[in-house]
């Protein structure tokens, strides 16, 4: 990515927004039904790009029209969001998408209806604008709340502050919502790989055991489905620092899907996955075959439920899961009808996961692609 200075980028963004506004204005002045185009963000319009190895948005566009009762409300909301973003950039501020929601929420004159009833109405509009203008949320001076934490042998320069991630105690460093190079600088890194852990509780175990110190790695968790800040930061560690990334997830369809989001992206953010995904990520575990390899007692496995099986069947068809290793894993999971949580390894001892399981897995390079 060309690293433009903030000012130049702002100017470019403002021009794009102004252009969109002008186009709507022109249509209205010409007496036309005002409309704008935006890419379709559904499973039907995404594809797996073999070059970048990420999910990408297809060419399908839809037109959102003011004079279409199914679109009118969203059309109005899009205009409001675009206009607000312009104001925020003018004021050189950055606001959260929650701030944005509250800033724009008001009762429409003469009705008892609000412009936005819920943040779930304004969030997708932000994504629409990102996708149609091909801009990142951060470039629009918007931030989503982030929830992930990271620690390891490295320093971070955040504005004027330099933070030593070595000395973050039990809590770790909270990943900020904007981790773009102009905000966050990575310094003095001394690690051999990045470990992306699905669950916070497991991440805490690894931190408490100082796993990152003993094994020279960076540990990060997104506390479930990671937000884009965590994913973007891991991508930077991978690209800029050439660190391999390993994922440690529950052995269930949800954990495996989160892995796929880290590796090649999600459907709803498919328009910006090139800037978020880390295609070289490897899946360390858990897998169903771990049950045999590590002699994990049967009683700590969980029976698959209907929803799991349904999800499994869907995922089996995703192009990025077509590799034979994954198909085999899915098959095995379906045959045995079990899933396994990371915490289940505690049955073999509290430190089994950090002292036996992971070192052995990395040593034997027992990964899924």
């Amino acid at each position, binding site marked *: 990515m060309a690293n433009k200075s903030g000012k130049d980028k702002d100017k470019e963004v403002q021009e794009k*927004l*102004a252009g*969109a*506004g*002008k186009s*709507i*204005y022109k249509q*209205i*002045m010409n*007496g*036309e*039904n*005002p409309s704008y185009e935006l890419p379709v963000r559904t499973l039907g319009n995404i594809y797996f790009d073999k070059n970048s190895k990420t999910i990408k948005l297809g060419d399908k566009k839809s037109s959102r029209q*003011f*004079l279409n*009762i199914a679109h*009118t*409300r969203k*059309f*109005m909301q899009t*205009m*409001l969001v*675009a*206009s607000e973003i*312009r*104001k925020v950039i003018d004021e050189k501020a950055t606001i959260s998408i929650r701030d944005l929601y509250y800033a724009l929420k008001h009762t*429409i*004159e*003469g*009705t008892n*209806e609000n*412009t936005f009833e819920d943040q779930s109405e304004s969030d997708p509009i932000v994504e629409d604008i990102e996708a149609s203008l091909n801009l990142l949320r951060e470039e629009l001076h918007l931030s989503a709340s982030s929830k992930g934490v990271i620690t390891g042998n490295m320093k971070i320069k955040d504005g004027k502050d330099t933070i030593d991630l070595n000395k973050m105690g039990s809590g770790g460093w909270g990943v900020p919502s904007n981790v773009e190079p102009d905000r966050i600088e990575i310094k003095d890194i001394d690690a051999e790989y990045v470990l992306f852990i699905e669950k916070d509780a497991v991440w805490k175990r690894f931190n408490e055991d100082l796993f990152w110190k003993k094994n020279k790695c960076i540990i990060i968790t997104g506390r479930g489905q990671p937000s884009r800040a965590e994913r973007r930061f891991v991508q930077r560690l991978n690209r800029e620092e050439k660190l391999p990334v390993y994922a440690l997830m529950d052995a269930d369809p949800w954990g495996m899907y989160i892995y796929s989001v880290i590796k090649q992206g999600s459907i709803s953010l498919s328009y910006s996955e090139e800037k978020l995904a880390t295609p070289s990520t490897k899946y360390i575990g858990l897998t169903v075959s771990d049950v045999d390899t590590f002699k994990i007692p049967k009683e700590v496995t969980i029976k698959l439920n209907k929803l799991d099986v349904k999800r499994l069947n869907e995922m089996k068809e995703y192009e990025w899961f077509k590799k034979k290793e994954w198909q085999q894993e899915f098959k095995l999971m379906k045959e045995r009808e079990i899933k396994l949580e990371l915490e289940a390894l505690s049955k073999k001892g509290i430190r089994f996961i950090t002292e036996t399981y992971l070192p052995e897995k990395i040593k034997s390079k027992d990964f899924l692609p």
Partner: protein
Amino acid sequence: MAGEKEVKTEEKKVERPITAEELAKDFREHSVAEFFKKNRQMLGLYGKIRTLTTIVHEYCTNSLDATEEAKILPDLEIKMSELGTEYYELTVKDNGPGLTKETVGKALGMLLAGTKFHRMVQSRGQQGIGAAGVTLFSQITTGKPVKVISGTGKGKTFSLELTIDPKKNEPKIINLKDIEKQFQGLAIQAKFKDVLYRVSEQGPLEYLRRTAIANPHAQITFVDPFGEKTVFKRSLNDIPEKPTPVKPHPRGVTVDELITLAKYSDSRKVGSFLKNEFDRMGDKAVEEISRKITFDMNKDPRKIGWEEAEEIVKAFKEIQFIAPRVDALRPIGEHRIKTSLESIVKPEFLSVITRKPQVYSGGFPFQVEVAVAFGGEAGRSTNGNNEKKEGIEELKRMEIMRFANRAPLLFDGGACAITKAVNSIEWKRYGVQDIDNAPLTIFVNFISVYVPYTSAGKQAIADEEEVVEELRLALMDAARRIARHIVGKRKEKEKLEKKRMYLKYATEVALAVSEMTGKPKAEIEKKLLNIVMKRLKIEEEEENKVNDVSDEEIEKQLEKEVKKEEKKKEKKSKKGKKKG
């Protein structure tokens, strides 16, 4: 509503209709009052709200029948006042022929004196035990007599007070006085305790409203305990033809009915009794029966017992009879229903259909009348009765008005074939999006000499396959005829909503675009409003063009669906015949 809860549990205990024989037997062994107290639920006098409705029903039915018989246009005045907690006084006045000093006692003071069991006729009065039962109920609950004024309109007016001697089942008349005043008709005043007046779907007001709808030739005035007066005006001036009595068809008779008929028979032999008392019963049939039974057909019919009657009924089922005659069926008629619904429900759209007679269960004739009324005062208000606030659109719920032989059925709706048929229809197909919350009144009159009631309460019609099918066809036909109006109205509403939506969002859009471009908001808004109005105009024009064609299209499409259903039904009945 608490009073209605017990209804369901008590009703389950009733297994079969009680016969006059059994009643008479009981009268001898116990006092009538005792019997009455024990058997209230069988007589329709249970549940505090239901009892009051049943009482009103008994009196009104008598008045309507009497005026009809005397060819007088009925004028009914019902007044109810609250005397204390669950204590009411009811006055019912009609303009009928009145009663004579000789008949008044029998009519109002002797239980089962006027029962119609030996006269198979499509009649209103099928539930309850008549006015005498009401007299007794009043007496038991209050200890007071019933006051009666009767006049023929020719100077002969008298008043009296009446009670029943429960031991002898005989009327006791006191204070008999001649009155100078001219009066034609009958006025009854009685007091009741343990009853409750409610303005509910099962209360007296709703009962009278439905009675008025089924009897457009009657004028009914009701003053409720709060002093509120409701007048259901007469909307037609012709008195309906009386249904002709017919002999029972052998297929429809039960064992105890057969015994009862036999006891009252003048015939000397069972064979002639069967020929005399039953419809479609010829020599050939009698001969066939004689071959199927184990006793002598020359036996005195008055002496046949339960087992022998059972044999005969069993034989009836095995023999082919000509179907019952349909000329005893008396529908209200499309014109009459239309007139009364227009007068009382005042709907925006209305369709009424009286179907041709059909048969169920292999031979019982029945006929179905259906009306679907939409808009106006159709449907039940859910805002509460006295809280019509201004400016707030009244919320309406669909209501089903069930009738059997013109008598309203207010109870046990869930178990009724009519309710089942209404619920089985895909109302969306007829433009009704949410059937439960539509301003819709569905009127159904089921006509038959043998109404297949589900229980002795006689408030729900059994879901015989042919009955439900016929009801469905009738309902679909009626719904089809008003579908277009409903769709049109909905579209009109949608159009308005669309316009409102465009306009309210236009202001927001104009402001945002103005902020983005720095152009004046007023100018943008004005242009945007022009765009909206232009679009709506074009849409309307297009719709009008399409409408001319699609009117017929809708009609055709709906017609096809009804025909398909009819064909299905034909196939089914053919199959059934082959099997038979």
